């Protein structure tokens, strides 16, 4: 099994390189402001890891990752708002809009830091599990699933906006000061948050990589390409898809939770239809079925958005539209498939081409 060994050696080298870049090079080269932006992009990349798993591998085009990102983000932000307000006080916005004199019952558990931390990941996973088991069991798939997931994102954002007294409405939960006792306006602490995010991203990539290369990962691709055939082999494809969907939701939840201390705010505008679909575009541009591609794509697109929209907001929208069109219509494997193409060409030029792994498989589960 030379091939296997070579693959894991390459992966280990890749991880070491990525860790060096994230933990040494980036903090040295980037200003505090730029490092903060990078932290934000890495959160997007964490969502993309999940999308790579669910969509790239499992064919589940989830246009509602914003919901899970938001659940994680709000769970974290609720705790931080309560902590900011101090014992016995209401979070600032509730004093402003609300008539309530005490915390709403569904806020109260979030006062406990352990509960809140667990909820950032488990709450999105639970919602995904309930929703997914309904949807997949009845074989709602392909475009139907995509549309339903998008409707979910829309409904969640609308609901949040409607509950101004308890969720902050359109503004969201803003002006978050502290992160478990550390003041977030201190650059040192901001840097710490960045390191936590970078470590979390590497962890999620390692987790996703294990899943992709496991027997489950092979089965997931099989379900994507021919669900009915898998059923005739005695598996229940609904469960296979559910696992990918729930894991992706957990990843998005964690991303949302870490996004909050990095940026200091969570609002419906960050989780509705548009941001949900923006999560997908990064993965699509980089290569939906390739973990590295999806992560780099997500960071690249998020960076391009900041760089372009700072100066030319209109140009950014056109550029984003073009990205969608070019990446999906003409390069469905994303940039990662270009790498594969080059590698294959080089391999065919070399005399003995031992490795004949297929290039980033991209399938369409309709």
């Amino acid at each position, binding site marked *: 099994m030379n091939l296997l060994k070579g693959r894991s050696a390459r992966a280990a080298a890749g991880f070491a390189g990525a860790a060096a870049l994230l933990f040494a090079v980036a903090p040295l080269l980037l200003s505090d402001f730029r490092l903060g932006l990078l932290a934000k992009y890495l959160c997007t990349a964490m969502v993309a890891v999940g999308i790579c798993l669910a969509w790239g591998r499992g064919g589940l085009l989830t246009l509602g990752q914003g919901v899970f990102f938001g659940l994680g983000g709000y769970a974290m932000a609720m705790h931080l708002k309560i902590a900011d307000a101090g014992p016995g006080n209401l979070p600032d916005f509730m004093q402003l809009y609300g008539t309530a004199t005490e915390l709403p019952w569904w806020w109260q558990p979030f006062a406990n830091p352990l509960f809140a931390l667990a909820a950032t990941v488990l709450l999105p996973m639970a919602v995904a599990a309930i929703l997914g088991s309904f949807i997949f069991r009845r074989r709602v798939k392909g475009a139907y699933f995509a*549309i339903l997931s998008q409707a979910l994102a829309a409904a969640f954002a609308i609901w949040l906006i409607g509950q101004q007294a308890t969720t902050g409405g359109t503004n969201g939960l803003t002006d978050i000061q502290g992160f478990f006792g550390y003041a977030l306006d201190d650059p040192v602490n901001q840097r710490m948050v960045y390191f936590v995010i970078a470590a979390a991203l590497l962890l999620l990539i390692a987790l996703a990589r294990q899943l992709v290369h496991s027997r489950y990962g092979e089965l997931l691709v099989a379900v994507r390409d021919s669900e009915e055939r898998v059923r005739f082999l005695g598996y229940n494809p609904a469960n296979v898809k559910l696992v990918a969907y729930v894991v992706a939701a957990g990843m998005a939840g964690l991303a949302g939770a870490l996004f909050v201390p990095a940026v200091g705010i969570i609002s419906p505008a960050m989780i509705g*239809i548009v941001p949900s679909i923006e999560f997908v575009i990064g993965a699509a541009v980089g290569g939906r079925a390739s973990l590295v591609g999806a992560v780099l794509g997500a960071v690249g697109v998020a960076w391009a958005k900041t760089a372009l929209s700072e100066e030319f907001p209109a140009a950014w929208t056109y550029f984003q*539209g073009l990205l969608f069109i070019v990446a999906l*219509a003409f390069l469905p494997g994303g940039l990662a498939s270009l790498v594969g193409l080059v590698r294959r060409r080089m391999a065919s030029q070399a005399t003995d081409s031992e490795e004949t792994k297929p290039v980033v498989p991209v399938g369409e589960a*309709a």
Partner: protein
Amino acid sequence: MTVILGQTFTGISIGAVLLLIALGLSLTFGQMNVINMAHGEFIMAGAYTTYVLQKSITGAGISLLVALPVAFLVSGALGALLEWLLIRRLYLRPLDTLLVTWGVSLMLQQLARDIFGAPNVQTRAPDWLTGNITLIGGDDPLTVANSRLFILGLAVAAVVALSLTLRLTPLGRRIRGVVQNRDLAEVSGISTERVDRTAFFLGSGLAGVAGVALTLVGPIGPTMGTNVIIDAFLVIVVGGIGQLKGTVIVAFVLGVLQSVLEYSTTVSVAKVLVLVAIVAFLQWRPQGLYTLRTRSLV
């Protein structure tokens, strides 16, 4: 009693709007299985067409009536163009089509912003559409806005026209032939490419008509399409693929449901509850209200 009737009638008029915006989709998504997220922007194009026409034609009534066919042509042409440029390359990849057309929709929105500005604009409704009709008089009257009745009429007319076109004309027969068996249609001498493009023209044109109607009930803006597109897709998903009657029934049912729930809760909670109802409904009928049963693997 009047409250219930009133809510029902509001629901029916919400349903009429839903029906108009979903009708074009029932052709492009329902019949041809193409998920066109830019459909909402074709609606927007229809609305802006009305706005532009009203600026050049003084009479609000005449400009509205002129806008109907013109918007149909404008949006239809946009649709045919989109089909020719992109969609025909993607017929076997529905999910990619969804994302590609989302990109198109972003660009069209920005184009609208660049041409007409980001703030919403408004058209004047003609005099004969501004009043109300009293359906039940007395102390507790039930009145209905003329504009709502006009939209209801327009929706009914559009459904009848589309269904007659599909049933009776050679074009309709060809569309149905291509939908049922593309390969067979091709070997029987039907140019599937032309049929696809024509069907797309019709479906997108209907979006334009819907856009004209929307100018009567709300402002015209670059994001108006995004706001309605998901509801429209849900109507088709719940109604069932390839079935006009499903679209019609579901549009009105969802409209009434939305209106009743809005009355008893709030607008935002109603939205969530409608979605829950839809997911629950799909548990019962995953393929939608009406389905074509086939023995194909997918």
